[in-house]
């Protein structure tokens, strides 16, 4: 019997803190919720899983970040050398074993006689080719940050492979385990190709565009025993309410992206399990090239002026953790008391900072947000309310996502709501938070000192040196306030209690949780 994650009180807090932390440490403790999943299928129960999905997965591309639905497809029809298992622990996939020789050298041994779903053998050469493709920035791979650190790949026979990095990256395996880093057949290894053949546990059987997709087990998968389902039916329910309704009315067995408003209702429904983890962040990024927000003091004032609890209750129905600093998790060796509480809710201090910045009477500005995602827009409204109290009057500029993307990349905004999730949970994810032009960095922001400190934090040889470098980075962040993180939102999956073997992965890994879909079992 599953127990759903408690979402109230002290237990939640500790779990969530742990969840955002280091992968290996967390693994052991989050396992308790969903332990003993080694179920053998009940012969009388048809092993057909019907999933109500938040949308239609796009045609699969090599290495691209195609969102949570893309990660799911990656894990269903393809496979990488490693993958995230229960608790977010990295486990072998196509690789039988792997070794971290040092922080810049990794070796892998592939399983014997691997094949793609069309019968083509999969060898270490395919892996080498795929990794080199992912490392090329022109191919826009999601894992390019890690893969581009590869200096050379040497193969030894069909199953041996050694990767040497240009510089230390203790978390390189996190990139290898990312679902988008699946191994691709030679003739499909192109940025323009749609991937149809992989080495994953399932193959696409039938699809009706806009309606559904059926998958059946791949007979050539290397570990057929781990697959108990005879069929997976993906059905698309883009409307959040319709999706929840589909599960409640029994039309589907499993749904993704449960809206926070429905957590309590699903949790209290007998026969339904809700599994939620605090994962993706929502916060503010600025246009630091001009206007009041170019002034770090103003940005700091914003960080002090916003009551995160207000944001959490208004925009996330209370299902989020307020954030006043840098999300590392309390188990992270690099987290300190300071890093977790760089700021606090202190409107008086915010006003003083505004005074100091030369805006004693505040100012008018606009905030860019997205109308498609209620939590974005609601966050903007909550922020608007709090900033009005210190004299910053925001007008909402709300359009659909492509409009947001266009204005965001073109710098046509003053401050905007930004959602995001680290690609990996190790602190080097912060490089995509603070490096110039990185995905989640404020527009126009660049600080060479911060960059240097973050790189040193990743590459330094000893833990002490790394911790010291990260401390330095956090001090710079406190002064610069390059962005203001507000809340870590819960990402929820809900399913019938007859489904066994699912576990929402902790922290940023939550979006990779559908990795487990192929290996679920249905009991009576």
């Amino acid at each position, binding site marked *: 019997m599953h127990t759903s994650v408690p979402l109230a009180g002290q237990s939640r807090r500790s779990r969530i803190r742990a969840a955002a932390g280091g992968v290996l440490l967390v693994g052991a403790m989050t396992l308790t919720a969903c332990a003993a999943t080694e179920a053998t299928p009940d012969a009388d129960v048809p092993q057909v899983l019907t999933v109500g999905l938040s949308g239609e997965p796009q045609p699969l591309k090599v290495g691209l970040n195609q969102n949570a639905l893309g990660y799911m497809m990656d894990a269903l029809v393809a496979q990488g050398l490693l993958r995230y298992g229960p608790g977010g622990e990295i486990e072998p996939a196509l690789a039988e074993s792997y070794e971290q020789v040092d922080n810049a050298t990794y070796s892998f041994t592939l399983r014997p006689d691997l094949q793609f779903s069309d019968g083509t053998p999969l060898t270490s050469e395919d892996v080498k080719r795929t990794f080199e493709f992912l490392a090329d920035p022109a191919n826009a791979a999601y894992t390019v940050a890690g893969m581009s650190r590869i200096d050379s790949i040497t193969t030894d026979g069909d199953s041996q492979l050694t990767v040497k990095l240009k510089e230390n990256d203790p978390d390189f395996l996190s990139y290898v385990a990312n679902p988008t880093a699946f191994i691709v057949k030679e003739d499909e290894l192109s940025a323009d190709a749609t991937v149809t053949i992989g080495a994953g546990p399932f193959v696409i059987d039938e699809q009706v565009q806009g309606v559904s997709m059926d998958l059946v087990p791949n007979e050539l998968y290397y570990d057929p025993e781990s697959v108990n389902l005879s069929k997976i039916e993906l059905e698309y329910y883009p409307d*959040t*309410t319709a999706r929840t309704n589909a599960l409640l009315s029994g039309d589907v067995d499993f749904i993704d992206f449960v*809206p926070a*408003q*429905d957590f*309590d*209702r699903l949790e209290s429904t007998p026969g339904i399990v809700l599994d939620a983890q605090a994962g993706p962040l929502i916060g503010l990024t600025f246009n630091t090239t001009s206007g009041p927000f170019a002034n770090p003091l103003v940005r700091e004032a914003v960080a002090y002026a916003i*009551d995160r*609890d*207000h944001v959490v*209750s*208004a925009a996330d*129905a209370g299902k989020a953790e307020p954030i006043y600093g840098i999300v590392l998790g309390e188990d992270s060796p690099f987290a300190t008391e300071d890093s977790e509480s760089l700021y606090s809710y202190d409107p008086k201090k915010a006003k003083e900072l505004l005074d100091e910045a030369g805006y004693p009477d505040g100012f008018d500005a606009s905030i860019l947000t997205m*109308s*498609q995602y*209620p939590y974005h*827009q*609601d966050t*903007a*409204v*909550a922020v*608007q*309310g*709090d900033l009005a109290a210190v004299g910053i009057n925001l007008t*909402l*500029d*709300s*359009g*659909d996502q492509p*409009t947001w993307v266009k204005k965001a990349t073109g710098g046509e905004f003053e401050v905007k709501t930004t959602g995001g999730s680290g690609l990996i949970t190790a602190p080097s994810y912060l490089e995509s938070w603070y490096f110039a032009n990185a995905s989640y960095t404020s527009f126009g922001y660049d600080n060479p000192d911060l960059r240097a400190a973050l790189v040193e934090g990743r590459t330094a040889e000893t833990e002490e040196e790394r911790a010291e470098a990260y401390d330095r980075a956090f001090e710079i962040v406190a002064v610069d306030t390059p962005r203001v993180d507000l809340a870590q939102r819960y990402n929820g999956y809900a399913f019938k209690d007859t489904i066994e073997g699912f576990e929402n992965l902790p922290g940023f890994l939550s979006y990779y949780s559908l990795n487990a879909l192929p290996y679920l079992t249905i009991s009576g």
Partner: protein
Amino acid sequence: MKRKLQRARDAFGPMQVIALTFLVLLIVLSMVAPAILPDPLAQDGSHTFAPLGTSGHILGTDAFGRDLLARLMAGVRTELMVAFATTLVALVLGTALGIAGAYFGSVAETVTMRIIVDVILAFPPIIFALLIVTIYGPGPITLTATMGVLFAMSFARIAYGQTLTVRRAEYVDAAHAYGAPTMTILFRAVLPNISAPLIVQASLTMAAAILLESGLSFLGLGLVPPAPSMGSMIADGQRYLATDPQLILIPSVVVVLTILSFSLLGDGLGRWLDPRRRNAHG
């Protein structure tokens, strides 16, 4: 005079009286609301989801702790203003197009009725609005302009048809013969004689505009938050249907009653201004 009164009494039954009373009450309430109710935008994180009947918040509060009654009244105010502006735009634009098409003959007719009106009518209204709002961004101006153009087409068709019949009327010919300027003829002779069906259409358009506006807001294409509107309140409320049904039910009821009142008034006006339809009412 007596006959006129009798006609009005026939046309406006008790339903129309109730509708009119409701609308007047709603308008008055929404106008005085800012003076007596809390700020509809004021958030209060410690008073979210207050139930009905909470002291200080008669209808309770929403997820931001904003007073529901104040938001409702502000929503009604914007709703009515947008609907009224839309109707005005539609009435003026549509009537101008229709008269021009009918009065100035073949080229004008082709341009106005065949090209402008038919092309716009070839789009399902919501699809048209979806495209325009995506381009220009949501907001009251976009909304009014889009809906105004859409609804103008029905006015254009009515004005066109009416002007065609009036154009050949004796009094128009007479004005021509006296050498009256075209504009004078249009405003003095044509317009007054085609106005009855246009007024009826205006009342129905108010109802249709409220319906369409709330539908667009429901799809996130209406007003920009945090400004309240009926449709966005209903869309927000939908998310809390299971736990706080009043958040969707109250605005829904107000929308339904408002639309109902306008269409009832439209019916009454129609009967009053068009005696032939009186019999139809039975």
